[in-house]
Structures are given as C-alpha cells and as structure tokens.
C-alpha cells in the first residue's frame, strides 16, 4: 500500500489505473514466488510421495510406476516447468491421495471454506461496525461497558472452546441448531451453480435447502466471527471517537445538521480507513480460525483436506492449497487498499 495525500484532479483516475496495474504485477510476482518456494519445499522435505501414494505394501516397481505417472522421476526444474505450464492452463494436476484432478477436490473443499469464511466476515463486519458506533455514541454508558465486556470475551476465548460451548448449549441442551455438517443429510444439496449452498439454494429457489443451510452455518459462522467482531467493534468505537472530536464535526453540528447525518455521513466515513484495515487483517486471520471451526462443526472444508495433503505429502494438493490461499490473501489486501479511495477520496495512489 502506498497511500499519499494529494488533491483530486483529472490525473487521479489515471494514477489509480497505473497503481492498480502495478499492484497486480506485484501480486503476480508474489504468487509466482509462492509457487516456487512451495514447490521446492514439497520436494525437499523428507518422505517419498510416490511410495506413500503407491500404498504401504507396494513393490518397488509399483512405486516407480507412480513416480513416472506423476512425473516425479524428472529433474526438479523440469517438474517445475511442467507444473507451471499446466498451471497457466488452469490445471493443478492430479492428487496423489485421491487420484482425482486437484481442481475437483478444491471445488469440493475450498468452496465450503469460502462460504463459511465469507458468512463469518459479513457477520462480523455488519454487526461489529454498528456495535462500535453504538459504543462510541453512548460512550461510558452501560451499553458501552457491556460491549467492552463482550469484546474482551471475544478476543480472549479460544475458538475451539467457544465452538464446543455453543454446540453443547444450542445442540445438546436446547436442540435449536445442528451439531455439525453443511446441510441436513436427508435433504439433497442444491444444484451446483456457485458451490455456495446459501446462494445456490437461493438462486434455484430451493427453500428447503436454504433453510437447512442457514440452520447449519449459523453456529460455525458465529464461532468464527465472534473474535473478529469484537476487534472490529472496538476499532470502530476508537476510530469514531477520534473523528467525533475533530473541528469539522463541530462545524457540522453548528450548521444544524441532524446527529444521524453527522454521525453516519461525516464521521463514520472518515473513520472507515482504520476499520477497513482491521477488517482486511481479520479476514486473513479468519482463514486460520476456519480450520479449527471446520473440525469442531464437521464442516466439509479445506482444513481436513489440507491436513491430509500435508500428512500424505500430496505435493500437487499442497501446491494448490497454498496458491489458492495466497490468491485469497493478496486479493483481500488489494481490495482493502482500493476501498480506501472509495471511502476517503483524499487518498490517492502513486
């Protein structure tokens, strides 16, 4: 991020595009570096992927057959060249573990992770910001104290303990929500359009699947969102309080603007930059938390797949998981940087 203060002018749009292109270039370079490092690491760590894939009692000749099949017998740089050439065609190779194209496994496991992550992201942003605003407006009131307590618990409570407690209360004791899974196994999943059950069932009008998906995603999303919600609400409060003390807010109030307008139009917009920064960081940290939440709630996501890929040295799967996660991280970072200009036109990029 290279934000700089400067006047808005006719050149700002051009600057913006130049910046965007430059950032995309950096992103591609980063991702290329990621493929190189991961590729080398997966090949130099101890263990023979071909032996593991061939099966524990495989004869040497079977192991060699697997090695040839996956091109693991070629020199490292040739393997990397082939991998990159295939990657540019959108081919992640075949999984040594499942023997299926990695892209098929990614579709099955990455999309549920994305759905859970995005739902949790939406949840913490849409609840965290209003909670922060309320805390700022009613500063040092019982509501603010309650919100502080809530936030403190959110950042202190480990995700897995929180998840297990929710499960115990809302599944075992109250029976309101299911203990795990993505949809009731008695209900057929919606037709695959985006791979997100919520969206797909909404688009296809499959209300039964929608209700079940909502029912199932609620507890894991709350578990995942809670910690970030706490952070975002506190950041919103602090940032808003700082802006509310500025002269132009006093001027706005002096002009007789309604408090709602002062707050939402003048103050909040200027307080958004740090909130966006923290939101971007929190989305990144969600990716770490989501793996734990997936295990607790039997969410069929990337966590278990990634764990298995590492333990069985499924080199193609490890590459794909790292790359996709890298794309997600860099994408979120870029998006947040671009959003700065939307919320604060004074920021321009060079």
């Amino acid at each position, binding site marked *: 991020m290279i934000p700089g203060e400067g006047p808005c002018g006719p050149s700002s749009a051009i600057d913006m595009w130049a910046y965007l292109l430059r950032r995309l270039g950096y992103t591609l370079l980063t991702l290329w570096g990621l493929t190189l490092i991961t590729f080398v690491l997966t090949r130099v760590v101890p263990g023979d992927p071909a*032996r593991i894939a061939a099966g524990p009692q495989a004869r040497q000749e*079977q192991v060699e057959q697997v090695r040839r099949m996956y091109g693991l017998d070629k020199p490292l740089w040739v393997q990397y060249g082939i991998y990159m050439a295939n990657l540019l065609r959108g081919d992640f190779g075949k999984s040594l573990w499942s023997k299926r194209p990695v892209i098929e496994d990614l579709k099955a496991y990455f999309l549920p992770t994305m759905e859970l992550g995005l739902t949790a992201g939406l949840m913490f942003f849409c609840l965290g910001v209003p909670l922060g605003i309320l805390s700022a407006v009613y500063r040092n009131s019982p509501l603010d104290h309650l919100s502080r307590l809530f936030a403190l618990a959110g950042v202190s409570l480990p995700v897995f303990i929180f998840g297990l407690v929710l499960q115990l209360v809302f599944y075992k004791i109250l029976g309101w929500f299911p203990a795990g899974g993505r949809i009731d196994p008695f209900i057929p*999943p919606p037709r695959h359009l985006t791979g997100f059950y919520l969206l797909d069932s909404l688009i296809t009008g499959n209300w039964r699947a929608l209700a079940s998906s909502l029912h199932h995603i609620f507890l894991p999303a709350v578990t995942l969102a809670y910690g970030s919600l706490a952070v975002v609400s506190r950041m919103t409060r602090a940032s808003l309080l700082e802006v509310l003390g500025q002269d132009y807010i006093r001027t706005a109030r002096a002009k007789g603007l309604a408090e709602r307008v002062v707050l939402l139009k003048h103050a909040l917009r200027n307080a958004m930059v740090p909130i966006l920064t923290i939101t971007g960081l929190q989305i990144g940290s969600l990716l770490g938390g989501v793996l734990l939440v997936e295990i607790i709630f039997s969410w069929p996501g990337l966590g278990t797949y990634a764990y298995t890929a590492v333990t069985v040295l499924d080199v193609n799967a490890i590459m794909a998981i790292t790359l996709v996660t890298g794309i997600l991280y860099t994408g979120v970072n870029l998006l947040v940087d671009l959003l700065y200009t939307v919320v604060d036109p004074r920021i321009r990029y060079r």
Partner: protein
Amino acid sequence: MARKVLLCGVLFVSLGIWALGQEIPRERTLVIATGLQPSTLDIGVGYEAAAINVNLVVYERLVRYKPGSVEVEPELAKSWSVSPDGKVWTFELYPGIVFHDGTPCDAAAVAFSFQRAMAINLGPAWMLEPIEKVEAVDDLTVRFTLKRPYPEFLQVLANIFGTGIVSPAAVKAHATEDDPWAQEWLSSHMVGTGPYRFIEWVKGQHIILRRFEDYWRGWDGVKNNIEQVIIRYITEPSVQRLLLERGDVDIAMDISVDDWELLKDVPGIVLVEKPSMHATYLRFNCAAGPTADVRVRKAIRAALDYKGMIDYVLRGHAVQMQGAAAIGLPCHNDELPLPTRDLDLARKLLAEAGYPNGGFTLEYVYESGHEDRRRVGELLQASLAELGITLKITELPWPDLWERVSAADPARTPAIVANGWWPDYADVINFLYPMYHSSQWPPVAFNIGFYKNEEVDKLLDRAQVETDPAVRCELLKKVQALIYEDCPDIDLYHLTTRIALRDWVKGYVYSPIYTEGFFLYDMWLEK
C-alpha cells in the same frame, strides 16, 4: 412493510417445505458417524480402513469372511476347487447375480474386475501379484491360473481391498483414452452387486447408500428394514458422542476413551469393545548399535512393565500380544510365552552383553498422532533408566518416519521404532513374511530392523508354497517361535476396537478383519 410481508412469506414457505415428508424416513435409515473418509472409492485402488464400510456392502467378493470370524465362506461363488499343485483355482458363481446398473454379474465380469485391479497395479495389487491369468470358462465359472502355489489365496480373495467385483459396463461407459479403467469416475462412484447401492458422496459430508431392490439374495424373509444408509463424516469424536446421545446417529465409530467411560451410564446405548488384530510393536535395529546384540534386545524386553502398559497407559483398551502374529488368526502360535517385567533378568542379560551399568543412549521413534506410542515410549524410558540406559524419544510425521526407516543403511535406522501392522487378510504369513523375511529389508519392505535368520527365511519360503494346511501351519508356528527367541522386536499389544450403537440397532456382529465394516444385510432397526 412490503419487505416484512415478503420475509414472512419466505419463512412460511420454507417451513412448509421443511415440514414436507422426507423420501425415506429416519426410522428406516441407519446413520453411521465416522471420522475417516476414504480418499477414493475405487475398489481397484483404495487401500485404507476408511473404505471398508462402503466396500463391504456395495461390492461383493467371490468369498468373504464369515461375520464375527476369520473363517472364509462363499459370497458370489457358491463353490470352488483347487488343482493338486495349488496353481489353478476354479470358482463356480451363483446364478442370477446383477450389478446395480442392471447388467449381469457373470464369470467374465469377475475376470474383468481382477484384470482391472492388476492392470492399475496400485494399492492392493501386491496381493494379486501371484496371479498369472484369470479367465471365464463359461458364464458361471471363472478360473485363476497362478504363477506359483499361493496357499493363502482364498484368504486374499476374501479381503476387502481390490477383490470386490465391479460392473464392466460401468467401467467401459466411463473409460477414456487417457483413463482406460475409468479410475477418475470410479474414484467417486461405485457399481457393485451388494445389498446396498451407491447414491452419492458429498465430499467431507456424507456417503448415501440405498437398498438395492434387485439384490440377488432377495429381501424376503430377512429382518432387514434399513432402506437407506448415511455415513456421516464427523471428525471430532466428542461431536460423535453428542450426536449418538441425541439419537441423530445410530452408530459412532470414534468414541474417545474418556467419552467411552461416560457413555457407559447412558441408557439406550450399547457399547461393543473387541480386541482388534491391529498389532503394535517396538522394532529393534538388529544390524547396528547396541540393539544388534540379541542380549540387549532381550534385556529391554524384560525391562518393560507390560501390566502397567495395558492397565494404565492404555487404560485397559488393549490386550498384550503373544508373539509376532495377531492372536486369533489361524496358525497363530498359542504356546509362546507372554513377556513380563523381570529387571534381574534384564540386568543379567545386559551384563552378559558387556553393559553391566547400561551407559548408552538409544533413540525411540514414533509416528505423530499416536498418543499410545508416545506414552509407551515414556514408560520404556522410565524402565530403561533403571538399567542405566538413556532413551531419547523422537516424534516424526509419517513421511519423515518412513524416510528414516526405509534407508538401506542400518546406521541411519533408529534403535527402536514403534510400529503398527494391520493384517489385510486372515493369515499369519501376512505378518511374518513382510516383517521378518530378510528379502524384505529396506528399502524393499517392512523388515525395518534388518532382522535375518536363515532358518526363518527358509521356513517362510517353504510356507509360501506349501499346499498342505497342516504342514504349513507347523512351519509358520515354528517361525513365530524362532522370531520370539531372536527378539527382533517387542510384541506389544492389540488395541481394542470400540463401537457405540443405539440399542435400536440390531444384528450387529463385529468382524475381526472387516473391522470398520457392517454386514448390513443381516442388520435391522427396531425403533
């Protein structure tokens, strides 16, 4: 206001649809929770315990292990015969068997299935290596010609990996130029002849099976009322317990030791615990370092507290092994002694070996995730400390561990490796040959301690081709006695298999070989 009306409408419609009856009611659905998901459903490729439950009911084999036993009985084949030289096996099939896709399962289909597994040459194919050719003699007769006598052939055919019969029509329909055996399609589909047919696999979530109405054994006169089976993948054992307690699943496969104790007091839950044939060993490096001396190996065997290991380390969920092969298998040597702790003997043996006060360090390596092996290592560490031997415990992930033990150089192999072994089929040779024959030294196979006894090699070579079962059994029992005497490892324990069921699940019989499997045709629900 309009928005509120719309929201209420959507909610109402959702609830209405929710309330509509489901296709197959819960009362006639068996729900199984397990943490293990197979990597592939391909019967010719898959080679992991996670696939046993689906393989056992979707596919059928020529023969199978009788429920609750290691005895072989007919499945698709009603009878069989073997030539006097043990090299030609002929199987007669039952008539009228059909695949789930409606095509007939005849001798040609059986031959095709084996040809497919052998051509793919992955995972379980090593067991089929002695087959020279397999052919259909007529519609109902299939003949195997072997390269050499293969006394355990029938046991191999009954095993769950690689021997299930798959529909040739389904394979051909999904074969491509690059994938002539339709491996990609069959990695997530199944077409067999079993009592349940495959419906769907939502990865990470569940596999659904439905009763196959045209099942060749028929459904008349059986107690089975299970129309649908849902195998749910629940990774967290404590969640499996919660689901079982509330009756949302009928069977839980992975109950932790702590939860097991708690479930004992819960009404309506039946707990089944049986010793498995899974064996855990401490394998010594017999070719380098202090453990190359048999007296040191025996001293370490005499130092371990076996009772403490079973009662406290494993909290009673294991039985002590007797020799190198699993208890309960045919030809297991029941006369071998069970080692006990004898520190005086250990000190005497060490002194004879030239280490009266110990004074050396050994490395103990175990695979990550095996808590039992870590605790056994700690127990051994304490025991050996009394003899003046220092034990350094190293935890390694499986690929790293494999790297360490598959080196051809014994100097790189750790002194002691904690190692587990599952029998693929019910024959002691499945333990003895890969782990104790000197041709199986690393990097070839699993004789990871570089153990060599020419007499053992000779006896095993003979047992591999001996067609007289009684003579073969004597040979194999002798091998076990020799191995015990040479002490290339400490035979530790068989962990128990624990399965928790709701009391409305009836007809379950534990299978010592298909440990994770259920003979669903013989089961029913009483809700």
